[in-house]
Structures are given as C-alpha cells and as structure tokens.
C-alpha cells in the first residue's frame, strides 16, 4: 500500500512547522511506522538541526532532483535513535527555484511505496517553495499559533491548499498558553475555529521543554515529562485514526476563575 504524503505548512514563519514535522515524524516512527521527512525549505534548512542530524548530510534534495547522487536512498539519512525514521534534507546553498514541483512529485513517487508516511516540511511563504512542498502531497496539516497574524496567514494558506485540491486540511494550534487564554489575553480555540473552520488535529501548549529539546536536537515527543511532547503523541494517534480526547491544558480554573467565567457569561 502506498504511503500517506502529508505536507505541514503555515504561511507565516516561526509558528513551529519544523518542530511539528520532527515530532510527528519521530512519534509515528515510535509506533513502528516507516517514516521519511522531507525538508522542502531549500536555502533555510532546519529540520536536520532539530533532529540533530546536521553532521550526517552528504547529499540533499537538490542532488536528488538533479540526479547528482546515484539513487535517492543515498540521500536519505537514518535517524540516530530510530532505525525506521529517515530524513531527506534540503540544500542550504541553493534557493527554492533549484527544484520544480514536477521533480518533487517524481521524488515522492519514488519513496511512496517504501514508506508508510512521507512528511513534507513546507517553507514559510506562498511562492515557489510552497508550490514545491504541496505538489506531491495528498494531505495537509496547517500549523498556527494563537496570534491574529498567524491565523490570518493560516486562513490564506487554507484557501491556497484548496486551490491545489487539498480540500480538507487539518489544524494544529501550537504554543497555546492556557493561563493567558483564561485571562482573555490570548485567542482561544473557539476564536480560531470560528475563523478557520477546519478540523482540529491537536493543541500544543507552549512549553519551555520544546526550546531545550530543539536545541539539543531531540524531539519533545521522546520526552515523557514534556506537556508538548504529550500533545504531539496524541496528535500522532489521531493521525493514525484513533479517537483521542483533547487533553486538559492544565490548571482548570479555580473557584474564582469559574466565578469570573460565569460573570462573563461564557
């Protein structure tokens, strides 16, 4: 059976696409799926760093597209922790035009039969890099943070995905701060759902562990004490088709909080 090809995109930069890909890829591999992550952010590659695989790169996506390396398998880097997880890194010294959407389709087609999941890390923006990342995908995950600007860009991206016939993208809401939502200082899930109106795949709380794990090159999903890691593990299960209830964002409002909520009629 051919694998699922999922693009992770957002429009806006810095909302956590790469972190999401690293965690979902690792999470799926932990469940014994054969996974390859493709970094489509040519010229600004990060996924290798987040995975801690930077020093193992020999060939990259552009080499594969231009057929500089003899076979696609030569460019795949095996993860240092999980033997069924692979990375196809982006080229750092080229730009987005170095690969065409047709080449991306060709590359993905070559990988499809061998893997259960192909996760594509889409660059920010809506130009060539986006076209490349989306070209071969059959599913899309949109990542946003609870900020008006990120939600606006996510909305734009959902429109563009639909133009590319990816009609039912799902949403990951990243870096939610429950304390701020409770105080009414941050958009909450309902506000965002109101605008984007697509299926919510998961909510990832803001978590300092993520910064530490990103810097260490160790996805948070491997860390059992990380709240964000737990959220990503739940998302992985939902991707696999399980019904998983959304986790409580910690610290339910106390008596006073509930009273305030009542006063605001929510």
């Amino acid at each position, binding site marked *: 059976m051919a694998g699922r090809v999922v693009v992770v995109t957002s429009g806006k930069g810095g909302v956590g696409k790469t972190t999401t890909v690293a965690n979902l890829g690792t999470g799926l591999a932990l469940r014994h799926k054969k996974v390859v992550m493709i970094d489509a952010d040519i010229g600004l590659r990060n996924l290798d760093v987040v995975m801690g695989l930077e020093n193992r790169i020999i060939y990259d996506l552009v080499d594969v597209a231009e057929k500089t390396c003899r076979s696609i398998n030569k460019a795949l880097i095996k993860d240092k922790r999980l033997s069924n997880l692979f990375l196809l890194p982006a080229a750092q010294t080229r730009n987005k035009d170095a690969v065409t959407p047709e080449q991306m389709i060709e590359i993905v087609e070559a990988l499809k039969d061998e893997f259960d999941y192909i996760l594509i890390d889409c660059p920010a923006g*809506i130009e060539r890099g986006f076209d490349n990342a989306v070209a071969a995908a059959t599913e899309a995950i949109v990542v946003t943070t609870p900020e008006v600007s990120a939600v*606006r860009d996510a*909305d*734009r991206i*959902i429109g*563009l995905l639909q133009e590319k016939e990816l009609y039912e993208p799902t949403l990951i809401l990243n870096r939610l701060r429950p304390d701020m939502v409770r105080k009414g200082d941050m958009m909450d899930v309902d506000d965002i759902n109101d*605008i984007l*109106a697509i299926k919510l795949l998961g909510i990832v709380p803001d978590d300092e562990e993520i910064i530490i794990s990103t810097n260490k090159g160790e996805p948070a999903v491997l860390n059992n004490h990380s709240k964000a890691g737990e959220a990503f593990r739940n998302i992985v299960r939902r991707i696999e088709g399980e019904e998983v209830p959304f986790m409580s964002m910690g610290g339910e409002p106390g008596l006073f909080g509930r009273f305030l909520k009542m006063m605001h009629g929510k």
Partner: protein
Amino acid sequence: MLLPAINPLNADELVFKGLKQGLTLFIPEKGPFQHWLAVLDQRLDEAKTFFQGGAILVELGERKLAPGELAGLRRILAKYRMRIKDFNPLGKKKLNPRPKERPLLPSGALLVKGTVRSGQRLENEGDIVVKGDLNPGGEIVATGDIIVLGALRGVAHAGAGGNMQAEIIAFTLAPVQLRIAHIFSRAPEERKGRLGPEVAYIKGEKIVVERL
C-alpha cells in the same frame, strides 16, 4: 471666451450625485463643453482616491454632444478608470425633482459555496451570495447586493459602479470595511456582542447598519 458676466461658469456647478440609478455626473447645460471637461479633469485628479473607477451615469440635461465632445468626455473618464453606463438618468422631465424609478438591470447572482478566505477576491456583475463566511483579508465586490449567510469579517463592496441602493446583508456583520457605491465605512474599533442578522445600506451620504 465671451461670457455674460452675471453668469460666470462656476466650477461648483459640475457635481457628482448619487441617484437611485447610480452615481451620476451632472454637467451644466450652459457654457462651452470643453470648459466643463477641464473642470471634470481637475476634479477627478483632486479626488483620485475617492473615485475608484467603475461605470457612472452622465446627466447632460438639454445639451446635445458632438461626436468629438463625447470622445473627449470618454477619454477623461477613462483616465480615471471610469466609463459611461448611460446618459440622462433624470429623463426629459426636468421639472420633476424625483429621479425616475427604473428597474435595476436584471443580472445573475453569483452563489459562492464555502468560505471566502484571506487573499481571495470575488467579483460579479450582479449580486453575490456566500454560503459561508467572508474572512478578514478576503474581498467581495458586486455591482449589486452582497449577502453573506455567515460571518462577514472581510471587505465587502456592494453597488460597485455606483448603485447606491445596493445592500450588504450578513448573519454576523463584523467587517473590516464596508463599501457601497462610492461610500466607504470602517467598522467601529470595538463592537460588543453579536447582534444577529444585519443589513447595511446608504442613508444620506453615510452607510448605516440596522438589524434585519
């Protein structure tokens, strides 16, 4: 130019008015046509941002245009991306101050299924009905009415081209900006509460919003 001193050609006599039929340019009957063209050119140049192009009506009264004069008028309007939809909307009955009621041109409505998202823009000669939301960053432009069967949070321009009777209706009206004909309005900075279905239309020279 030899003109009667008691009747100077006051530039203010050339006016744009919103009639029921649409935005209308009134060119005075008196005086050489070339003069009024120069006035028009200057007026449009001063108000470039106000007149955003589109089709207008031209009221000439009893004046008859020579072919060259008509071409001159068209040329100046074209410079500001405007064109002439029709002449003399007031008809010949100049004594009747009420503009003659004319049925609106029958036109097809555009039915949009789903949400109009940021970066998407829809245009239609006629009405537009959206079965979904209009999100911030999205735009809808119709020469007729706009009806959003959901939340209108983006930019809606009804009556584009000058139809001042056009209306904007939404189940939740929370726009970034509303435009009807040539009139613009911004939503108040802070609007509390959802008020249910509302309609926006032109009253006087302003856009007003009422519960439907």
